[in-house]
């Protein structure tokens, strides 16, 4: 551990302040709580919101897993792990079950999380209404008054134009029938995992200085019309070329040599685990 820094890099006052914002977020599921985003030796846009949450919560008892686009080995995930280890000495893992804190971008792990785990999501754009309203003071008022017609209109327009709802990632969901929330850039495949979950979900947006949360067993529904049910991505007829799984979220790979398309689990550690079992 690098003794030049305070434990977990941030000073104790900053960590306490971030934890206060987290508590408020947990108390009002889906509501975006502003927080005083700190400077980190990592560029904004590289997950500083998520890292600040992780740093403010982490302690010697914890085990950390970091994933980026489902992968434990991407440069971003590796760098974040290195940084946290440097200032905490906390052990890291790739095993979803072993981790007490999982920081992630783009994915929720395939293995269901348990009630002693926290999933920290890095969020670029926390505001689900931003696509229909650019002004922050207006979106604030829309949330306060539960004026969500414009976002529903967006979904309806998609139905009229394309006969289906075309939003893939950042698919908006309603939290406890009160706040519409942006589940960060996870694919809508992962949206159902937010509902009535065992674990605590925390969302951090560093640049936009917002924290929001889904506590365990919160009702989270992906927006859908009464007569047009929500549908997640379907990988029907496709399977992971490595582990053979048919019900995970698959990344499409393109082999430029052969010109062939094939599919592979986006959750690499889960894929590995399945393969270990098989062989």
């Amino acid at each position, binding site marked *: 551990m690098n003794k030049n820094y305070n434990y977990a890099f941030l000073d104790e006052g900053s960590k306490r302040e971030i934890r206060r914002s987290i508590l408020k977020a947990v108390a009002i599921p889906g509501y975006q709580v502003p927080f005083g985003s700190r400077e980190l030796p990592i560029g904004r846009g590289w997950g500083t919101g998520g890292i600040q949450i992780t740093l403010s919560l982490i302690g010697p008892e914890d085990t950390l897993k970091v994933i980026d686009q489902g992968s434990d080995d991407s440069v971003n995930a590796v760098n974040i792990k290195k940084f946290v280890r440097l200032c905490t000495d906390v052990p890291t893992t790739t095993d979803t079950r072993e981790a007490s804190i999982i920081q992630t971008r783009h994915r929720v792990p395939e293995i269901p999380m348990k009630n002693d785990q926290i999933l920290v999501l890095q969020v670029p754009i926390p505001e689900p209404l931003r696509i229909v309203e650019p002004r922050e003071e207006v979106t604030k*008022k829309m949330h306060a*008054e*539960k*004026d969500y*017609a*414009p976002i*529903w*209109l967006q979904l*309806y*327009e998609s*139905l*009229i*134009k394309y006969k289906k709802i075309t939003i893939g990632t950042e698919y908006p969901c309603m939290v406890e029938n009160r706040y519409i929330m942006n589940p960060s850039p996870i694919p809508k495949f992962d949206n159902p995992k937010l509902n009535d979950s065992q674990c605590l979900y925390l969302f951090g947006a560093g640049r936009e200085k917002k924290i929001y949360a889904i506590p365990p067993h919160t009702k989270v529904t992906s927006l859908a*019309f*009464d*007569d*047009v049910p929500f549908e997640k991505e379907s990988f029907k007829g496709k399977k992971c070329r490595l582990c053979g799984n048919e019900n995970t979220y698959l990344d499409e790979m393109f082999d430029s040599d052969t010109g062939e398309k094939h599919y592979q689990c986006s959750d690499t550690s889960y894929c590995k685990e399945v393969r270990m079992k098989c062989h």
Partner: protein
Amino acid sequence: MPLTEQPVLSVKNLTVHYGDGCPLCAAHLEKNRCSACGTVWAANDICLDVFPGEILGIVGESGSGKSTLMQSIYFDVEPTEGQAYLSDYYKGEKNIWMASSAEKRTIKNNIMGMVYQNPILGLRMDYSAAANIAEKIIAAGSRNAGQMTERAKELLTAVEILTSRMSEAPKNFSGGMQQRVQISKALANNPSLLLLDEVTTGLDLSVQAKVLDLIRKIIAEFGISVLLVSHDLAVIRMLADRTIVMLDGKIIESGLTDQILEDPQHAYTQQLVHSLL
């Protein structure tokens, strides 16, 4: 008109001014502008009632305050003074201008429908015609897409727009079609009051006649009360049961439309009627 009936809309002493006003305003108005302080009195002590099933016409020259009146009623312009009551809002016992912003939204969605002089104010030009209508239905709480589409088809048919064009955006429509989409949007939730601000202005004469015919048909079909604004007395003559004449932000004359046409009292009205003949 049986005046014992409760009005659908009642406006009391509406005043809208732009500028702070000064003690000299009342005595120094040049048209609607105070020569001492420059304040514009866009609407000046307006009182009116719209009774169930009637079409109340408002006629007046450009700048007389017609749109200011309409947009105050529709909450787009904040009145400086005055009260307004709707029979469908707390039985006409509460001033709608004191409603919370959430309540105002409900009133706009469910009790009133507005057709703006400028279609850009009333339509989302980049969204489909169907979505423009659905917006109102969504805001009223429906989450059934099929029902929205059915209703959109029904309303577009009522204003004689082919349902095959409902997925097109109004920005690609002609002016007359845009006004008709506005009308169908305004009617989406069966409001009790329809506000029409210069619906036919800027349209070709033949298109004007068609839109006016259509409005007459729809008013009869929907049994709706209407506040109809136009600078064109010919339009008012065609549609309005009663008429109010505005000049420089004030009401200068009101009565049955036929009466006003036959026996105008105010010099300005006389001139207006004269030019019509």
